[in-house]
């Protein structure tokens, strides 16, 4: 696996860790943040951060994976 791909996969693991495997630890009402129950706040925060995470993965792929062929780019 090329370095850019490896870094991208590691970044992409973050939404899975926070939005699936962390759920048993965040299944709580309090503290309420910005008026939202904590569980909902946690989920929304990571949903909103996912585009940033994917954008970073995209930049790292670009940086470390020099394009081999331009077909489909």
């Amino acid at each position, binding site marked *: 696996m090329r370095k850019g791909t490896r870094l*991208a*996969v590691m970044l*992409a693991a973050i*939404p*899975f860790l926070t*939005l*699936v*495997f962390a*759920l*048993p630890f965040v*299944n*709580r*009402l309090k503290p*309420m943040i*910005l*008026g*939202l*129950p904590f*569980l*909902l706040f946690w*989920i*929304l925060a*990571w*949903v*909103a951060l*996912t*585009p940033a*995470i*994917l*954008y970073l*993965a*995209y930049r790292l792929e670009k940086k470390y994976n020099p394009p081999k062929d331009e*077909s*489909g*780019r």
Partner: protein
Amino acid sequence: MNPALIIIFGTILFSALLGVYAGRRVPMNLENWTVGGRRFGVLLIWLLMAGEIYTTFTFLGASGWAYSKGAPAFYILIYGTLAYTLSFFILPALWRVGKKHGLHTQPDYFIHRYGSRALGVFVALIGVVSIIPYLELQLAGLGFIVNVASRGAISASLAILISFVLTCAFVLTSGIKGAAWVAVVKDVLMLLAVGVVGIGVPLIYFGGFGKMFRALNLKFPGHLIFPGATGHMDVVWVMSTCLLTGLGFYMWPHMFGAAFSAKSAETIKRNAIIMPFYQIPTLLVFLVGFTALLVIPGLSNPDTSFLALVNKTYPSWFVGFVGAAGAVTAMVPSAVLVLFAATLLAKNVYQTGFNPKAGERRVLGLSRILVLVIMVAALLLTMFFPNELVYLLIFGYDGVSQLFPGVVLGLFWKRVTGKAVGVGLVAGVATVVGLIVTRHDPFFGLNAGFVGLAVNGLLAVGLSLATSRNAAVSPAGPAHSLKGGRP
């Protein structure tokens, strides 16, 4: 004639005409019909995919779940985000294979990758069987929305019939491009409707969503954490359901096919990055469902909570506007679903399975006839077997999710074999059907589809390892080489 009726029918008609117009001067062949000539840029792909994903379920089911079940509804926010994250890796790779080998459908991919026509036919059938309840769900939702929004002036059957004719019109003339253009109208209307109502109702009744949540927690303690108002939808169920539906998301034949219509692998990758933003409307729908629980508790059908609250709160012209948005929101996914179901049957069941010599014109002609046949079938199912909305969706997911190992292993693992994928697929589907029929869903807290997928994936990997090792030892040597070949 009241203003709501004019708004609803005006919008439906305008959308359908736009869809028909989209197809002018497009010579109709299979390439244009199914994948829009592979010419869609980031914006159109985003709108098309959002059009397919945010369906009547977003209006009805999501608010219904927030209303009747509480926190388990949050799974909808999660699984989409997981799917987009996966799609960042899967869809560009898939697009390249599709472009290189001129693939149009999901079974095309299986046939190409594993060199097995039987597998292709089986995959096509799983797709069609999963699509029909999904389509039925859209039609039922549409009839219901228009009926309520017109305050009973239009019967559900009449609404379904009219939009069914109009949807068929733009599918038949413009193929996937028609759906993409109508998706533009749909998105603008739906965002407006959900934005106004989602921000509006908590403000009107409670002075803000923070106060609404506090009031909800006082009146219904436990509603806002798992398992909410349900007994069985606890954290483990949510986790397994999110994983299952997140993996299954792009395995829907229409989602899979939409990826092929992008103009480049880069387009589809950028699309994956911006998709999660489209989860925000779902949050607003939840706010409506929660507010409805406090304002109008005790509804016999929770799926009515969104519209019932809109009806109670807003003037009739605005209710008509929400109805119009809801109707178009059903038409776009209906169009794409019926298009892909028909193409799967014509291309991958009829042509692949029975008549490999059939020419392209014949396959396209048959696809068009089948669009009508499938729509009528869904129409009859909707009228005679109505069911609670979200369960149908989850059953469909259980089926299509079983295609995940075949697609992903095929893209990224050289050693996977068609036989192993086929055995895994049959075992996975059998597990799901077995668990549901014997009423073991959830199975020890896990979603039945997830159990099937685990069985399926283990078999696909295990058998591939076992058979390709044996083959490598055998003196015959190249016997293990892939029939279909990797791109």
